[in-house]
């Protein structure tokens, strides 16, 4: 069976995650070989995921870690004293 583009699009996400079965994977790959449109969509989606996982894209607020550990230190300190009251 030959896949059309729309069918490939429906499975792009699962294809990227490698959760499609072997037969469908093969069909998708066959389609990708000769379809520039779908290859481009696949590549662009993959690139977005690479960018998403890149720590520079979603940055933490400046000083976040310091403030967190400061507060945690206070909590740890007080937890020894009044842990029964918690």
């Amino acid at each position, binding site marked *: 069976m030959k896949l059309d583009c729309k069918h490939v699009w429906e499975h792009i996400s699962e294809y990227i995650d490698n959760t499609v079965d072997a037969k469908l994977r093969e069909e998708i790959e066959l389609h990708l070989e000769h379809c520039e449109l779908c290859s481009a969509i696949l590549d662009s989606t993959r690139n977005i995921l690479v960018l998403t996982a890149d720590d520079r*894209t979603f940055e*933490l607020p400046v000083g976040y870690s310091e403030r967190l550990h400061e507060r945690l230190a206070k909590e740890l300190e007080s937890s020894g004293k009044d842990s029964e009251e918690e």
Partner: protein
Amino acid sequence: MRTTDKNEAALIARILAGEKELFHELIRPYERMVYLTLLSIVKNETDAEDGAQEAIINAYRHLVSFRGDAKFSTWLTTIAINEGRKRLRKAKGAAEDSLEEKTEAHEGDYTPAPLTDWREIPLEALERKELREALRVAVAELPDIYRQVFTLRDMEELNIDETAQALGINTGTVKVRLHRARMMLQKRLVPYLKTTVPARRGFFGRAQ
């Protein structure tokens, strides 16, 4: 059991036995994850930071209830999600529309957008600041149910099962939401990916 899990189990045992200072060390690898989880729910940086602190302190207080049948990261993510939802409920007032009640019912267009001259997009396009900014905005604007799945799966890189477990939904739902989130982002970002790339400035094309 993976090495990280083993090390964590050992750390947790020591913390519970009284070496509480080690909690700083236990939590360090997950600070980012907790913050991003909160941000995906409350959508406000100050609130996300407050919530992240609160979630981590909660994790410390309830560490004894961590059984080790889930991964520590998943357990912690669940605490972070609960903290986020609590804040959201408070902000919205009563249970007007809780996150879980929103379903996939609203049909939308989840097809990707075609790119015609993709071949011309080199790596340096991905290094552009505008693209990162556009991605941040696009993620922030995703409907809640999609943004949360996308954050856990693609930003924090939890697997499908862990994402499902943390959010309390089934894996099929995770897959559907993830697919839609990714396609919506692809569509939103195509215009940025298409923009003509300026002249080369070294392999990664950093502007500075």
